């Protein structure tokens, strides 16, 4: 029921797969042309669907329903991170529908790795456009020409009201709360962790300034004595009682609240120094064998009733009419969990950094972990 246990569980597998990918495929480069990427797709069944997503990030009932409705099979594979997804794509695997985050869409479509998606082929696309005009021209994919939005999320802080009271300060500084010493977890994700400290220090979320990143590094190293860990499985750490305060995604808070006996004790806040906002998308790789089926599948999920079912299952809001309404229902007891269109517009989004800057970010994070 979450986006995250898989990350952890599959780490070992990922490393093994990485090694296999290396030995098996060596350095096979995959460089499709722009013409290949821009070929139009018509939404009609052209074979079974090869589906590639985080595990448990879509209602299996909807997948079964799709198989029945169109008489195709859905062959599911899972990745545990965007890096893992890319490694599989680079190894030459062919999938029909994938779910990259905004930042990775930016990278992939610039490398002609995503097919153009003609929105007029999707009967339910007006569910997106009537919900918001944000996706008419998002930063990561001009005119949403290669993607359809799947889910949006914010990063904030989840805390135990029964241990720490009804209100925290509304600052990222809450992750330094002395009262919760030894019960605090930060996301085991280099972007989220560094981004959080960047915002706290008043820097741009995506800063690549060396002096600023050095300060951020010190900020995070200074936090370590208060931490219990860097968590790749926030739902478990929170619902097991090991955490009192945890750096978390809003959708995982929904999942925690669904699992525990007294959800009212599990509160969520976004922070006043800045709110990282992310979006996941549907996309069709350039080397997909059955893009037509993939189009039908995307359309199937956009159906308002299906979107509502899916939200109930995975706990993350879908930015379309049906999904959003359903999510508002889930978030009614803890409105801070909701993602507003304004947050999407104004929030801080992780950008795809050039290689050298990305290396600097990774070195900074490695130094934090190693300290």
């Amino acid at each position: 029921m979450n986006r995250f246990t898989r990350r952890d569980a599959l780490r070992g597998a990922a490393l093994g797969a990485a090694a296999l990918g290396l030995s098996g495929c060596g350095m096979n480069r995959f460089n499709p042309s722009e013409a290949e990427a821009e070929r139009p797709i018509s939404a009609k069944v052209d074979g079974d669907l090869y589906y590639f997503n985080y595990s448990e990030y879509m209602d299996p009932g909807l997948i079964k329903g799709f198989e029945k409705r169109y008489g195709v099979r859905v062959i599911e594979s899972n990745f545990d991170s965007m890096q893992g997804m890319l490694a599989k794509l680079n190894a030459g695997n062919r999938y029909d529908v994938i779910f990259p985050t905004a930042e990775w869409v930016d990278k992939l479509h610039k490398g002609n790795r995503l097919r153009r998606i003609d929105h007029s082929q999707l009967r339910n696309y007006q569910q997106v456009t009537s919900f918001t005009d944000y996706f008419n021209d998002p930063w990561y994919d001009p005119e949403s020409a290669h993607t359809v939005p799947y889910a949006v999320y914010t990063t904030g802080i989840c805390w135990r009201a029964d241990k720490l009271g009804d209100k925290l300060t509304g600052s990222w500084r809450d992750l330094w709360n002395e009262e919760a010493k030894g019960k605090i977890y930060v996301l085991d994700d280099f972007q989220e962790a560094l981004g959080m400290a960047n915002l706290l220090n008043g820097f741009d979320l995506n800063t690549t300034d060396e002096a600023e990143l050095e300060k951020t590094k010190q900020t995070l190293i200074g936090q370590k004595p208060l931490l219990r860990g860097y968590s790749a499985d926030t739902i478990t750490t929170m619902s097991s009682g090991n955490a009192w305060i945890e750096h978390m995604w809003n959708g995982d808070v929904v999942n925690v609240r669904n699992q525990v006996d007294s959800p009212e004790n599990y509160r969520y806040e976004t922070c006043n120094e800045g709110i990282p906002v992310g979006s996941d998308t549907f996309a069709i790789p350039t080397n997909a064998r059955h893009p037509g089926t993939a189009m039908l599948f995307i359309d199937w999920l956009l159906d308002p009733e299906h979107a509502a079912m899916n939200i109930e299952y995975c706990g993350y809001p879908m930015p379309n009419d049906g999904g959003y309404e359903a999510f508002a229902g889930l978030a009614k007891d803890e409105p801070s969990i909701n993602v507003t269109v304004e947050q999407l517009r104004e929030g801080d989004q992780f950008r795809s950094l050039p290689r050298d800057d990305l290396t600097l970010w990774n070195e900074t994070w490695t130094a934090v972990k190693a300290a």
Partner: protein
Amino acid sequence: MREGRYWSIFLIPGGIWLALFFAVPLGITIAISFGITDDLGNPVYAWNPENYSRVFDPVFLPVLIRSVGYALVATAVCLVIGYPVAYTVARHGGRFRHLLILAVVLPFFVNYLVRTYAWVTLLADDGLINGLLGTMGITESGVAWLNTPFAVVGGLAYGYMAFMILPVYAALDRMDPSLIEAGKDLYGSPAATFFNVTLPTTFQGVLAGCVLVFLPAVGDFVSAQLLGGPGTYMVGNLIQQQFHDAQNWPFGAALTVVMMAFLLIWMVFYLRSAARAADEGVA
């Protein structure tokens, strides 16, 4: 001569296996360790020895020291627990000895990752172990076992215990029991007999066990990943992070090669010691 050639045919399957699954991957790893990455994070062959100079960045020194330290402690724990187990089975197991050794090996039919997850559940704040301590009235609020160096070392010791028990058991099994009787006949106390007779005789088994536990424990990342906290980062985690999050396969490969070279030193030391022992006719 002819006969030698005939028998060498049997080396072919093993040789092919080694070439395909050891030499080739190792070659690729070494080749990539000199490489760079492109904008999408794909490794590209190149000549970039800087990956190696980065390995010796002082930032990583505490990680290396920590890994070796944890592995040494885990090895000691395995020895202290494993030797008596092996001794009991070998000397007092009687007709059940094979069954008992099977019982030692049985948990290892389950994947290490899965067994480590089991420890996560056992050691959780409101897990089985704290529940038991609470029922027995030993602790009131439970102990925070998880996310500590103790949990990591415990995970390592548990994970590699069989590698200690089996070689020690084999050495004890081979040992002539009359040596112990001789020690006693010479008025050796049980302790003196053990330290002057049994332990030296089985020393090669102990050494083999120590090497077999220590080497994989240094490079382990599962235990620190699942049972560790913010301060238990090991070399294995560092390498895993380079391949996974950082998409820096070349640097990850350079770290791997350096770590393998480091472990090779210990391996050579062990092999020489074993060879010398064989020359001297000590089992």
